């Protein structure tokens, strides 16, 4: 249970929530294993206490902060966001967190800080880390204006509870208009950098996974059509879920009104 009051947000969608079971048993968190059920099965192997986050790079107030230091000044909001995975499934998740912008302001980035780079913890004995499925640490990045956008969230909980390990405990990023892998889990480092940082899936398959990775039904992908998505909703398992139809994927995952201005004049096929 999260301590303190939880403030509702006007950014929340009123779509049907994915059940807690769905949100916490169907995950991509390759450090904990590559099968969708692995992260929940191996959740107890992730050590989240103690936890510290390094903030460094082009800023006035770098340092190594405990999780408590990071969380203390921020009111907890509830943000119900759509989450669209590049694998063409989606969920609706009630996150608990605070705007990344508020954290960034505390670090006082300077004028050279054009991008924000993130890293996930590397714990050598995690099953996926041992196998080098990706180059660890898992890393992600945002352009400064994306990071400062009011939709961009640092989450420490979901459904009013602390984040389970499989969902990126104890602190993760949530960027709702981008494919899920941009929303990096279990963050231990936030760096302000001048050049566009390397990002894990882009390193693994540059033609498939771009730096921006905005949800875009019009950009074809060699593995999954991005035109439609299967919503994984409340009930799990029942035979009826076999006949649930796919829905049309929306440009920017339905957040275009808020974020399209960030990409004005950009060729979104090239900068995918």
């Amino acid at each position, binding site marked *: 249970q999260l301590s303190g009051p939880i403030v509702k947000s006007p950014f929340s969608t009123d779509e049907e929530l*994915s*059940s807690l*079971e*769905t949100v916490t*048993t*169907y995950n991509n968190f*390759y450090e904990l294993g*590559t099968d*969708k*059920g692995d992260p929940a099965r191996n959740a107890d192997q992730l050590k989240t206490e103690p936890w510290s986050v390094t903030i460094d790079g082009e800023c006035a107030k770098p340092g190594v902060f405990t999780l408590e230091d990071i969380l203390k000044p921020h009111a907890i909001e509830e943000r119900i966001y759509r989450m669209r995975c590049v*694998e063409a*499934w989606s969920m609706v998740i009630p996150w608990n967190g605070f705007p990344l912008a508020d954290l960034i302001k505390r670090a006082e980035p300077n004028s050279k800080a054009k991008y924000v780079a993130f890293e996930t913890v590397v714990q050598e004995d995690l099953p996926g880390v041992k*196998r080098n*499925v*990706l180059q660890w640490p898992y890393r992600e990045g945002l352009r400064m204006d994306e990071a400062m956008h009011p939709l961009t969230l640092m989450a420490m909980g979901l459904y009013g509870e602390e984040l389970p390990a499989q969902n990126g405990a104890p602190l993760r990023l949530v960027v709702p208009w981008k494919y899920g892998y941009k929303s990096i889990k279990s963050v231990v480092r936030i760096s302000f950098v001048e050049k566009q940082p390397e990002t894990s899936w882009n390193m*693994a398959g540059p033609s498939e996974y771009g730096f921006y990775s905005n949800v875009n039904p019009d950009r*074809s992908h*060699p*593995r999954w*059509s991005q*035109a*439609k998505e*299967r919503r*994984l909703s409340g009930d*799990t*398992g*029942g*035979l009826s*879920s*076999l*006949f649930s*139809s*796919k829905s049309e994927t929306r440009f920017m995952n339905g957040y275009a009104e808020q974020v399209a201005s960030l990409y004005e004049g950009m060729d979104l096929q090239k900068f995918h």
Partner: protein
Amino acid sequence: MSESIAATNRLGLPALRWQSILKPVVFVLALTPFVYLVQSLLTGGLGPNPIDALTDTTGTLAIRMLLISLCVTPLRGLLKKTWPLKLRRMLGLFAFFYVFLHVSIYLVLDQQLDVAAIWEDLAERPYILAGTMALLILIPLAGTSTRGMVKRLGKRWVSLHRGVYVAGAAAVVHYVWLAKGDLIEPFVYLAILIVLLGYRFVKLLR
């Protein structure tokens, strides 16, 4: 020859030859994953995305059964016994059964017979093309698997059924191409396929 075997059987000597239970045992083993899958489906054991789980599982089973059926010839050669041949038709048909399930789930449950979406998959995703190739090769093989067809086609049956090598390769390529990040399982199948086809190639050269 066949008469003497029949006579022995009629006398019940020996009481139960292990070869006579071989086929039913292998039949039950090959059907077990299907039963398990149906049971998981009915009990919600396939998790929040059952269509994906069904597609993945039947696809993997199809490839495994194809590889197992490709083991028959090398097994006969290595053991210098003919009993593995008795299993070949059944194993091949089981492979086709899992391929058929896999493709039906993709077409009916995943794509919901949306012709435009299926066409887009074929046109833009090479792994779908490879999988389709495997299917198209296997259909006539399954259709000509009866004793009658074996007799009627004679030598042509043997040439036709060499198509299973191409189908097996296409199926494994399909899997290697679609796998994301974790390539261990598809590469294990690829290695097994290379050994099984390599065995035949070496035989051919000798």
